[in-house]
């Protein structure tokens, strides 16, 4: 029933019948501009969860000669805002039951939303590090942190009911998103990743550059909104 309610809410929010005839239905200034992520404290994550995620982000994307690290780039703030929003609530996904384990080809049949998966997954990880090392993940040295992450990635870490590999893939995807998406969403501080890659960002016109084939082009990247949190 919970899943049914969620699905109903999600669709009614985008279902508004309108009859449009004989004119274009817009007014000057009514363009659908993006909403920058809110500048504030954490919206979904607990302080302890944020510390662990920051430590993970710094191992997945370490500070080195190519860029700042994942934590400084804002990956934790990015994930926090995403989990608080429609992504974290799985607004778009089909969530009606019944739920069965399927074949690999049928893909994930998850009952939990991304926000719930983070809560459960980080709790299981905290249980593991406390039992094995007596500390939270963020208090471990980098080598031990890497060992745990490799074990999750290769599906050899026992996290009880939590699928360690699936959790790793979720966090890796979201940390990468935080590092690589427009700063609008709270990550990619100073467009650090775009400068690393040589990606020009939100530029919209390359007509003057198309004929410079095979040349190294240096663009100062552009973001939609400079929104370093």
């Amino acid at each position, binding site marked *: 029933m919970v899943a049914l309610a969620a699905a109903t809410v999600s669709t009614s929010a985008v279902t*508004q019948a309108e009859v449009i005839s*004989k004119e274009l239905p817009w007014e000057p200034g009514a363009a659908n501009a993006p909403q920058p992520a809110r500048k504030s404290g954490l919206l979904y994550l607990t302080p302890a969860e944020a510390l662990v995620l920051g430590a993970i982000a710094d191992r997945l994307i370490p500070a080195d000669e190519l860029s700042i690290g994942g934590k400084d780039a804002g990956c934790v703030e990015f994930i926090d805002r995403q989990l608080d929003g429609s992504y974290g609530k799985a607004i778009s996904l089909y969530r009606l039951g019944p739920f069965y384990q399927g074949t690999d080809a049928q893909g994930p049949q998850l009952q939990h939303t991304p926000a719930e998966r983070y809560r459960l997954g980080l709790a299981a990880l905290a249980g593991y590090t406390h039992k094995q090392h007596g500390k939270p993940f963020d208090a471990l040295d980098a080598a031990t942190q890497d060992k745990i992450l490799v074990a999750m990635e290769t599906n050899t870490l026992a996290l009880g009911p939590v699928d360690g590999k699936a959790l790793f893939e979720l966090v890796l995807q979201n940390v990468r998103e935080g590092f690589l998406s427009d700063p609008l969403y709270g990550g990619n501080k100073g467009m650090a990743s775009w400068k690393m890659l040589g990606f020009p960002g939100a530029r*919209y016109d390359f007509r003057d550059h198309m004929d410079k084939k095979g040349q190294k082009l240096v663009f100062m990247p552009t973001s939609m909104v400079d929104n370093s949190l």
Partner: protein
Amino acid sequence: MNKIRPKADAVIVGLGWCGSLMAEELSRAGLNVVAIERGAWREAATDFPPSVDTDELRWDTRRSMLMPPAVEALTFRNTSSERALPIRDWSCFEFGYNVGGAGTHWAGMAWRFTPFDFQPATMTKARYGQQQLVDGLIVQDWGVTYADLEPYYDRFEKIAGISGIAGNLDGKLVEGGNPYEGPRKNDYPLPPLKTTRLTDIFEKGAKSLGLKPFMVPAAQTSGAYTNPLGVKMGPCTYCGYCLYYGCGNWSKGSPNACVIPALMTRDNFSVITNATVIKANLADDGKTATGVTYVDKDGQQWEQPAGIVVFSAFQAQNVRLLLLSKIGQPYDHAKKEGVVGRAYCFQTVSGASIFFEDEQLNQYMGAGALSQQVDDYNGDNFDHKGLGFIGGAGILVVSRGSRPIGNTDFLPPGTPRWGSDWKKAYTHAFQNGTVVFGQGTSYAHQDAYLDLDPTYKDQYGLPLMRMTFDFNENDRRSANFIEQRSVEIAKAMGAKTVVPTNSARGKFTPYDFASDHTIGGAVMGEDPKTSVLNRYQQSWDVHNVFVSGASSFPNNAGYNPTATIGALTLWTARAIIEQYLKQPGPLVKS
């Protein structure tokens, strides 16, 4: 109690390419046309300016322009012995969900299919004999030929503002074009797009193998253009935000840019947005439709009475609407009888991921359809004797705009996926990695089909579409062949690392994004026992119901489907205007 709207001459279900082209023809012919679109109003300049469009997370990663699975999912299984489960997350089935449909977010490859693709049964039998077909394969002619459709392809190309170069003008081969294409009356309305470092390397490599590369016809304008409906388009700026994105430049041919602005000036056209059609309503004798039923935002059901009903939703939705409306006999897999849901197929994709030593490909610049291709191994352009399959693929490279999030796992084998080594390798691969791939044909099989799921429902309590599909032996053999040819081209291009890829090597999964070209299930043809629609995309059973879209294709070609969808829609619209309106009834005797 349903509320009832005033009767329309024609109601159009789904306002994408098919719906808008059909509406344009029918309203210009004087009919009062009402379109019903499930998604919201979208307009090129207002909704997709550079300050909104250039956002990978929103449009690509989070798929914000596509129909969410929460609204309507498919269920899926590889074989009929498995339990189908919902495709809960974003998958390769990319349904449009706005005015403009999938035509708003498409990449823009605007192909004509080859003459063979429309008559694979006749032509295979004549050239190779029946033994060329693997067991259970469904190969049948469309009932419409390339020659029939040629003027309608031409019209579509002019409406959408296609950039390209003819390879065959009235039987005369033209240097630089595709020598394998069917004969054309006219060249493309615009010259090809600019080339890139990548397309240059491909062209040189392909030519060194004796192949015949050419620029892919693209729905990005290589210059300023005014289409036959009077809509002005601006030159493409090569920003690379095409596939999954709108275009605020008026440079990508889309219903929003090319057709709807003209439609909205007409008194006899209107569109109802954010409204879901759940079925066509049939007259008591079941021989005609009286209109459609739809649901508005408050769950209120409405009837839209109409003299003609056109289903022009996405492929699987067209099939589902037919089943929910009880039009045509559903396919019974056990008995191998019935037609609705039968003849479903997809697309094979195979080729190679390639990595250069030290290139500057600058792949962030480009356009959705900025590509070079060879058709030497497509369709029936080569001799299949002894190969054990029919079909093939166009093999191509795409300069469609690399994006940082989407490319993260595009790395040479053995590269770590995180840490400093990943950052270094990814930075190198972002300039040096790309793909050479074959976009393949696919033929239906008696064990692949669509029907209504017995368990899973949508928000209205209506059954979801159930897909039973895996690649068949013909698919696998052709994909293997194309994989080998692609590897040869990749090596000729001078790549340092060549990694073969093949989506048809293992089981099909909807989470393989190699292609989204889902085909068939309500196919057109010559025989009501093996097709849902006649050669005019008219229902054999309910003569005032027409169905337009890739659901009509009995087989997939080694191309993108959109221009063929457009041409078929215009062909059908002409048949309605010139034949059906004069004498309503079946346009072909069954």
